[in-house]
């Protein structure tokens, strides 16, 4: 899923400027699962804004709404009648959702309340960890199911480097060395011969280096 962090309240207030009619818009997908922008978090942020403006003695209107998804136009379009009543849409979705809402409701001001951080997994309730960088050409079959692009600080294709010590990465003692994990997994599964294969330089054109990506499936089009 896409994982994010909520922005500090002060930063959100600053971004809102003089706007006092605010539609706080959540998303029921990834940001709900990672506890950053679902219905509950929309409630908390809306409550913070209400308490703050009540304290300041200001007039305001804060509306809470959560869409099934902010990355599909059909859901975004469904709130068109609602948006006219508010100065600002404060989106709690990932960067993709914020942009799609902004695109659908231009020139209305759309403000992000969340910093989108990574594609990851839930390690335990309340703990998430990065697993993928969307490089566009997956190689985890070669690396025992561990991605060195996302999980090695240097994204090394032939590791580990000299910073690996006791199974940990030199960047901090809590970060596993991805290449230690790879070697362990390859050993466990009897595939150490794969480790001997030298990986050539990666073609990054399938990743971000090739510019913004777009995917078209002609057979799925209406």
């Amino acid at each position, binding site marked *: 899923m896409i994982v994010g962090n909520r922005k500090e*309240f*002060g930063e959100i207030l600053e971004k809102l400027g003089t706007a006092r009619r605010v539609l706080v818009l959540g998303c029921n997908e990834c940001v709900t699962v990672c506890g950053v922008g679902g219905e509950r978090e929309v409630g908390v942020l809306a*409550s913070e804004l209400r308490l703050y*403006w*009540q304290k300041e003695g*200001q007039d305001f*209107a804060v509306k809470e709404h959560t869409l099934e998804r902010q990355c599909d136009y059909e859901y975004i379009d469904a709130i068109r009648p609602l948006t006219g009543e508010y100065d600002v849409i404060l989106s709690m979705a990932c960067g993709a959702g914020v942009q799609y809402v902004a695109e659908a409701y231009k020139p209305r001001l759309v403000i992000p309340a969340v910093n989108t951080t990574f594609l990851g997994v839930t390690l335990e309730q309340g703990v998430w960890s990065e697993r993928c960088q969307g490089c566009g050409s997956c190689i985890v079959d070669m690396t025992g199911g561990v991605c060195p692009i996302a999980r090695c600080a240097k994204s090394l294709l032939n590791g580990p480097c000299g910073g690996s010590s006791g199974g940990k990465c030199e960047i901090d003692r809590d970060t596993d060395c991805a290449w230690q994990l790879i070697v362990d997994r390859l050993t466990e599964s009897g595939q150490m011969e794969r480790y001997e294969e030298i990986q050539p330089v990666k073609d990054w054109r399938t990743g971000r280096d090739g510019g913004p990506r777009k995917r078209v499936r002609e057979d799925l089009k209406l």
Partner: protein
Amino acid sequence: MRLNYPSNVKVVKVPCTGRVDMLLILKAFESGVDGVYVAGCMEGECHYLRGNLRARRRVEQVKKLLDEVGLGGERVEMFNMSASQGQRFAQFAREMTERIRSLGPSPAKKNKEVLP
């Protein structure tokens, strides 16, 4: 025991303090209360194992949040007591009432949502 506690304290019953969500506390402040305290069982004695420990973490989170919005985190607190400690219940009710009195009314009472 015929113990007294201040009449300004309104009790909201929950099956376990683990039911207490951040939003419940925030909604109380939105409705105009001056302070909120959560009265949980003694740590380590939760019937549901970790309900009171979770409540404490949530109270800590609400403290941070109230500091951010300028109401002051000291308006919310978590206390632990067993079901047989009526005296402790009354004592915390008095302590919290005194604390909130010294802080004064919640500044969020000034205004209500007025824009249509």
